[in-house]
């Protein structure tokens, strides 16, 4: 089965939900849905992380099928809004960051 190699990072406290890991390397299945052949996109990555890597309190990561309010997703150092958000199709070598907005000061 072909895969897509990613670097995934967590910041702003989200690392605490992922066993205090700030950076992980992943080989994600290149097809989100083997029967229909939908390529792996950011929506799929979010769900894959929730099912396979999240260690606690999923409600602090996912809400209504996407990341919860207050989380920003960065695709290769660009706001995911400029890249198609959940629809962005992942490519080998992509660097995806999940960051929780901070309020402290």
């Amino acid at each position, binding site marked *: 089965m072909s895969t897509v190699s990613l670097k995934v*990072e967590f*910041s*702003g*406290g989200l690392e605490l939900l992922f066993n205090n890991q*700030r*950076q992980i390397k992943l080989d994600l299945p290149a097809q989100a849905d083997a029967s229909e052949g939908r390529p792996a996109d950011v929506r799929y990555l979010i769900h894959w992380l929730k099912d396979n890597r999240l260690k606690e309190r999923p*409600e*602090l990561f996912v809400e209504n099928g996407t990341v*919860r*309010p*207050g*989380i*920003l997703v*960065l695709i290769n*150092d*660009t*706001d995911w*809004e*400029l890249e198609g958000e959940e629809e962005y199709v992942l490519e080998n070598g992509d660097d995806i*960051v999940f*960051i*929780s*907005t*901070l*309020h*402290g*000061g």
Partner: protein
Amino acid sequence: MSTKLAKDDFRRYGRQLILPGFGRTGQEKLLNASVCVVGAGGLGCPALQYLAAAGIGRIGIVDHDTISLSNLQRQILYRDTQIGELKVEAARSAIQAINAGLKVDLYPCALDASNSQDILSGYDILLDCTDNAPTRYLLSDTAVALGKPLVSGAALRFDGQLATYNLGDGPCYRCLYPKPAARATMGSCEENGILGPVVGTIGTLQALEAIKILSGLHDGAPTLLIFSALTVPSFRSIKLRRRKPDCVACGQNGKRRDLIDQSDYVAFCGGENPDYERL
């Protein structure tokens, strides 16, 4: 009516005056500018000292809080002997000691929907050095209503974030975060801790951002800087979205001033923070 540099100013600001692209014009822009720093805590202290040292003509400081012992680990304008005093007063003494020529205006109150436009309308640039989500939304909405750039810093544990909102066609805070995070996900420095130089770095960079905007050195591109003291690379610059046409604050049908009157910011953000400082 613009003030010119005095004779002593050429010596005091000499190291800035000779910078390429800054010069005498840049310094006169700072001298004639006003910046309001909302929050005189871990972010506000370093921001205030570098704004004052650089010669910003008028500085406003908004904070209702008094100095406590647990502040001193990071709020470097305050002294052991000032515990219990108002932060705004102690901050003014500290920055006027650096630069006696400064005009400093104090607002020893919490910023809320009833006073934010009155307090902030007289300033060119606003600095968000606050420590809670409701005030961050209120400040952003006020910056949009008044049409002013908002240099926003935040820090927690080993991490920091910096972005300038409402600059040119860049986004406002609500463009990025239309819905607040659940209360359970919002850490505070009281609950989660903070390292002094982490918040110090972000506050210092807020002063830099304001100086760049005022002196004409800012490129206007909307960028989020994220910092973590424990990773390599420790800093990343993120290219941000433009203003969102459907933003309830700054979009085409944005409500602007009405939004502020109609919002209960504390309820919107999930209710009051527990007050750990008093426990």
